[in-house]
């Protein structure tokens, strides 16, 4: 149940297959739910050429590790996986992958979504987009309940 931070492009589908074949017991899990967040080339009606994803390295790793642990305690899972990019990211590149493996579909779906919602609301990452009008920090319109 690792959380992996990387600063280079990754192929989420290959990572799922690799992790699955190395860490999961074949024939044991019946449900694999996954989510991939990919960089778009537009946001709020402006063309985005690339972005920089800043983070708080020690806290990010700590936060994501604990999120995986909490997730495994909360749902009946065989395993879960998070991979998250940081640094410079270009359109069409995957930013984040969350995966949950379970015997049954409900915990797999619930856990995969839980990982993403928690990560979106609390993992210390900040996006700065570069558009044709210059740089801008991305704002999250959702209220934070963490203050």
């Amino acid at each position, binding site marked *: 149940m690792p959380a992996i931070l990387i600063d280079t492009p990754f192929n989420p589908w290959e990572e799922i297959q690799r992790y699955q074949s190395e860490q999961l017991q074949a024939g044991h899990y019946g449900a694999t739910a996954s989510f991939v*967040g990919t960089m778009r080339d537009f946001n709020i009606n402006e063309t985005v050429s690339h972005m920089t*994803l*800043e*983070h*708080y390295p*020690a*806290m990010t790793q*700590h*936060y994501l590790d604990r999120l995986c642990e909490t997730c495994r305690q909360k749902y009946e899972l065989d395993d879960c996986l998070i991979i*998250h990019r940081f640094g410079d990211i270009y359109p069409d590149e995957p*930013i*984040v992958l969350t995966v949950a493996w379970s015997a049954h579909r409900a915990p797999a779906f619930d856990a995969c979504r839980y990982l*993403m919602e928690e*990560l*979106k*609301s*609390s*993992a*210390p*990452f*900040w*996006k*700065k987009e570069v558009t044709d009008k210059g740089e801008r*920090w*991305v*704002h*999250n319109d959702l209220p*934070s309940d*963490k*203050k």
Partner: protein
Amino acid sequence: MSINVQFFASLRETIGRQQLALDYTSPMTVQTVWSQATGEQSMPDNTLCAINMEYVKPDASVQDGDEVAFFPPVTGG
């Protein structure tokens, strides 16, 4: 020992620095760390605070040697 203060993202740019060391004086809260580190600026409403990688509220107590971080709402994923 002292307090290691960190600012991230837009807050780092607003404050004009990424990190600084602050002399520890007892008692100290996250709010007093902010005030001393920023020259008594007011803390933006949506600022997130962490002590040693854990989210805390601004009235949380700080201990000598702690790392105290301030940052805007997160936008990862």
